[in-house]
């Protein structure tokens, strides 16, 4: 049991658990903000798992997963920015439609 409690295994399991939680949140929550946060959590879990693969045992670290995760973090923040801009427009359109339906006139 002791051989299983090394840092890579602990964080690998954590990454997989984060992936599962993020996927459930992505499907289960309705609001776009929650969905984007769930997608970010999924990405974080995948990154944890990737770096776990490249842990190595002694002094030699595998730097290729580090580079992949760095690229992934920047790509994920740009996707978050674009997704938030899109969701802001969606929410604005939803409220304007709602106001138009309720009161019969154009929303402000």
């Amino acid at each position: 049991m002791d051989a299983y409690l090394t840092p890579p295994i602990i964080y690998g399991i954590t990454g997989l658990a984060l992936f599962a939680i993020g996927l459930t949140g992505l499907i289960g929550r309705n609001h776009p903000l929650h969905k984007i946060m769930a997608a970010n959590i999924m990405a974080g879990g995948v990154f944890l798992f990737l770096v776990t693969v490249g842990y190595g045992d002694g002094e030699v670290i595998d730097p290729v997963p580090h580079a992949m995760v760095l690229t992934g973090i920047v790509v994920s923040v740009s996707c978050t920015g674009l997704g938030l801009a899109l969701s802001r427009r969606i929410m604005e359109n939803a409220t304007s439609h709602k106001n138009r339906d309720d009161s019969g006139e154009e929303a402000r």
Partner: protein
Amino acid sequence: MILISFDLILAASLIWLAYRLLVSDNFFTSVVLFLSFGLFMAMAWVRLRAPDVAMAEAAIGAGLTGALFLSALRGVPGGKQRERRVDGDEIRHD
């Protein structure tokens, strides 16, 4: 032994933070929990011997994504929190 327990506590905190932020109804709470989730992830990167990733995650993943979310909360009803003082001692958030 100490480091292993640190790892276990950090891993449990990550999972608990992720669960809480997806279940919470208040958007401001979710964003603040997401910020701390990013900072805990930065500590996990340090433990996994990836200091470059730790710096990038703390700056971009936690800081900038948190700022983006906070800026997006302005368009959500219930996202903007204003606090006001009631009766001199108690602070109420609307």
